[in-house]
């Protein structure tokens, strides 16, 4: 059987709002994942089970339906796991991120089909049916990748590639030409170059979250007590009557998500059910959901009714954490009416803005504050134009790992061809971004730098 060793993961449904999203995982890790999510060591194949998806750090991501497929009778022929979660791109992304941390890697376009074919799992009709789909999808992703590679990201990645090739060529010259009259081998120079490569790769990688924020939108959650005016605020920001507004507390029971452009940023803005205890079963579910949404938010706007006394009930822990990281705005609503006392000590680290969802006062300040938080908290400093996507970040992380291993051997003075083999792996990771690099390029550099030959 064809066996790749790697486990791959990718969403099987398009990246848009829908009731349900499916994430597919294929490879040896699936068995372990099934055990983790089911809590059982042996699971019945092909039988769906319901469970909580908790990420490695224990945070609940979503409640999902899992379907395990055993090796030999899955789409790809390998062990597989299908994860059905809510069709919210934010949730899908968090789950994927977590799968990557657990050792999966992002699937290449068409990779599931490739594995299926190589394992003899795909008959002709299936193959033809997916052919167009893959063609269309990989086209889109190639085009997107190409556009990126032509631009600033391409320049940044190519500069890493050039530098890596130079280090490789230097090492290879001393391996392949022992009889040549080469200058004494410099041990420190290549080490320094690799270290600087690593830190530049790290800088690039650090732009991935911001880049994802720009591409997919910042998850902005409007939270607060019932009747604080959350739905009113959503409507005011959208400029339309999207959410039902009423004086009755507990009007919003399930969350509502909308896209909104604020300044140069895309927001995925979510109106949630008000946070309170004992409001009936349906409302409780809604509130549990609100807590989850807060936990995964990029930004939270905590709406407070300025005419009411400050809330005495406990705020969710995750909200306090977000606030400490400067990601919470406290919107003191209904400023058109006489106000209660100040709310300064409510949430340390949060910004306070007084506004009115009815008159629109304070809304420009709110918009500015949101943009400012995205730029100041998520953007890596000094990387205005270069932003890498998650797939690139993953490749860069792998490259850094390989370089770290090479550095270790070089510092310990181990045989040169061993470090060279790590550097080759590092190059392989960059090839995931730039495509195959011809080995001739290394030789070109060797021959242009050193006078070699009889």
């Amino acid at each position, binding site marked *: 059987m*064809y*066996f*790749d*060793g*790697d486990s791959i993961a990718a969403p099987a449904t398009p990246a848009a709002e829908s009731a349900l999203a499916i994430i597919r995982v294929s490879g040896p890790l699936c068995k372990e994942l099934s055990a983790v999510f089911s809590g059982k060591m042996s699971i019945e194949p092909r039988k769906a089970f319901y469970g909580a998806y908790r990420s490695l750090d224990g945070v609940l991501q979503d409640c999902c339906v899992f379907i395990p497929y055993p090796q030999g009778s899955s789409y790809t022929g390998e062990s597989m796991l299908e994860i059905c979660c809510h069709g919210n791109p934010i949730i899908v992304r968090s789950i994927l991120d977590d799968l990557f941390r657990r050792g999966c890697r992002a699937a*290449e*376009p*068409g*990779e599931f*089909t*490739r594995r299926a*074919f*190589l394992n003899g799992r*795909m008959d*002709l009709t299936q*193959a*033809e049916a*997916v*052919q*167009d789909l*893959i*063609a*269309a999808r*990989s*086209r889109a*992703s*190639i085009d997107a990748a190409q556009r990126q590679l032509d631009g600033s990201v391409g320049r940044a990645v190519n500069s890493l590639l050039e530098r890596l090739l130079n280090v490789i060529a230097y090492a*290879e010259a001393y*391996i*392949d*030409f*022992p*009889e*040549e*009259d080469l200058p004494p081998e410099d041990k420190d120079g290549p080490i320094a170059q690799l270290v600087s490569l690593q830190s530049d790769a790290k800088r690039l990688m650090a732009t991935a979250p911001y880049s994802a924020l720009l591409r997919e939108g910042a998850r902005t959650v409007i939270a607060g007590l019932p009747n604080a005016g959350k739905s009113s605020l959503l409507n005011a920001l959208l400029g339309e009557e999207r959410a039902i507004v009423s004086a009755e507390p507990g009007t919003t029971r399930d969350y509502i998500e909308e896209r909104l452009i604020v300044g140069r940023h895309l927001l995925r803005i979510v109106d949630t059910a008000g946070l309170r205890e004992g409001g009936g079963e349906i409302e409780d579910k809604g509130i549990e959901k609100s807590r989850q949404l807060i936990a995964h938010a990029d930004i939270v706007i905590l709406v407070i009714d300025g005419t009411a006394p400050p809330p005495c009930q406990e705020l969710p822990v995750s909200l306090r954490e977000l606030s400490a990281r400067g990601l919470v705005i406290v919107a003191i609503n209904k400023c058109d009416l006489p106000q209660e006392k100040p709310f300064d000590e409510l949430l340390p680290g949060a910004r306070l803005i007084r506004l009115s969802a009815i008159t629109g006062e304070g809304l420009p300040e709110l918009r500015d504050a949101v943009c400012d938080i995205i730029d100041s908290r998520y953007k890596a400093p000094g990387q205005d134009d270069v932003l890498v996507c998650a797939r690139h970040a993953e490749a860069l992380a792998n490259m850094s790992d390989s370089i770290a291993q090479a550095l270790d051997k070089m510092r310990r003075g181990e*045989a*040169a*061809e*061993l470090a*060279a*083999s790590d550097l*080759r792996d590092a190059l392989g990771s960059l090839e*995931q971004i730039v*495509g*195959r*690099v*011809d*080995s*001739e390029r*290394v*030789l*070109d550099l*060797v*021959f242009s730098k050193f*006078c*070699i*030959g*009889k």
Partner: protein
Amino acid sequence: MTGTENNPYDVIVCGAGHAGCEAALAAARMGMRTLLISGNIDTIAKMSCNPSIGGQAKGHIVREIDALGGEMAVNTDTTAIQFRMLNESKGPAVQAPRAQCDKKAYQLRMKHTLELQPGLHLFQAIVSRLIYGTGCVRGVGTSIGAEFYAKTVIVTTGTFLRGLMHIGKNKTEGGRSGDFSAQTLSSSLKDAGIALDRLKTGTPARLLGSTIDFAVMEEQPGDAQPLLFAFYDTRGLPDDVFHVEQSPAMAAAERLLFHVEQGRGMRRPGWLPGMEQLSCWMTHTNARTREIIIENLHCSALYGGEIQGVGPRYCPSIEDKMVRFANHERHRLFLEPEGRGTDEWYVNGLSTSMPFDVQQKILHSVPGLENALMMRPAYAVEYDFAQPTQIHSWLETRQVEGLFFAGQINGTSGYEEAAGQGLVAGINAALKVRGEPHWVPARHESYIGVLIDDLVTKGTQEPYRMFTSRAEHRLLLNHNSAELRLGPHAARLGLLTPARAAAVLRKKAAVEDWSARFEQLAAPGGKLGDHIRKGGGLDAAPAEFLALSESAREEVLYRVRYRGYIDRELRHVSKLAGVERVSIPDTFDYATVPGLRNESRQKLIRHRPENLAQASRISGVSPADISLLIVALASRNT
């Protein structure tokens, strides 16, 4: 009579250089009725350039040739006059043996080996054309008018296809100094639709040793304990053909006598290859050399615009070095002896296409060569080659069935690269005649596999030479493991005697067994494997292990010491195994694959990969392209 239309040979090999000799021997050893035609059978296996065999990556190839039952390794061992292991300061995977050979003895021994080979007929004639059937080859026509028919033909013509030699502005037709050139064979190949291009290579001057002042040079002696190229553990030194030998008593009288022991089984008591080695000597160019060259650049064939062929980057002429590395004060030169029975010396590092008088000035500027007498001038040679993307990985041409190419005609350089291809061509011609599937070593099991795969998937823009950095699985290709990597294939193909085949399989089993047992046996502070990896010795190793052959012991230790790296390489290999298996038919139409990027499509059409693994190695082809191909291939197989 063999060779007629009704009773054709199985295999005809045209050209008896390093590729041709291995091709003919392999075919004949596989039971083929084989004809080896050479324009001059006094120049069989001639070392046209330097007198050395092996070196980095090339030495690996020679050991692989031995593992496959070829002749180059034994021929080198028994005619060598100096042995050196290169890269001793690095790890075992990139160490490589090199030897200086007695050029004449090398030729004579190879010729005698061919003569002794049952089923092989050696014949002197110049092949002037190929005889074609429809889409296939049927034989060769010769300059003496005779025609010879065969089921397969292997062309190994080296630099002889429209060879043109340059010394300054002076041009002489010929594949090598003092030899003819094949003028008409090229057009016969073109008739079959094979496209030819030009390449260039060169060779330095030869000097008379008694006029060289070695006293001012640095001596480079051979290794006291030489490692031989062939794996003799299973055979013992060959007694059937002569070897070059010098008795210790005669050693005092330096280079006075060389001794060739003809006969079978005759050997001076106590003689072993590697005894009584000769040294090489090192000197260098200086500022005066530089001046002379720069002043006379316009006279060089290369810089004067006389040469159209592309020369190799790794073997630049001295004028090239001076121009490209203008800030280097001096360039190193080696004086290498060409044999025991001659006082001719090869000047390694001084390739040039300057006119004769300038060459002399250049030589005389070099310390130790002030009074050196030139015996042969340096020259550059241009010749036809066929871009190797026109052949299958089993070295058969795509245009003509039964026609195989090996050696410099495929754009390679070097005796070793040629011999490796010759061997593979001979094997595959034989397999074709037998009606069996072709066989090519894979990239992860041999440098020969890397060589051939690079050639047929990427083609070459310069004479292709092997470097270890070309092999992505270099750590799996340490020279000592060649017999284990390729021996089992050779045994299956019938290239080894039954005794050697059995011994190879035994050795392989023993190495694998002991590599595993090292992880179980106890040693101070853990298992023996861990002990070895921490730099521990073999004190705790069982006596049975120490009783293994040196090569087997070394290999076990290599596998234990580098276990982590080797495992990682093997994981990389198994990742590719799936795509390796999916072949792309020659007739596959890339235009019908939807979604393929134009750039990839062009490259795939140009390179015509045989399988998906080859396709994925083409630069710029992305994993997404490969996925598209997979599906397109799947839907095609109805």
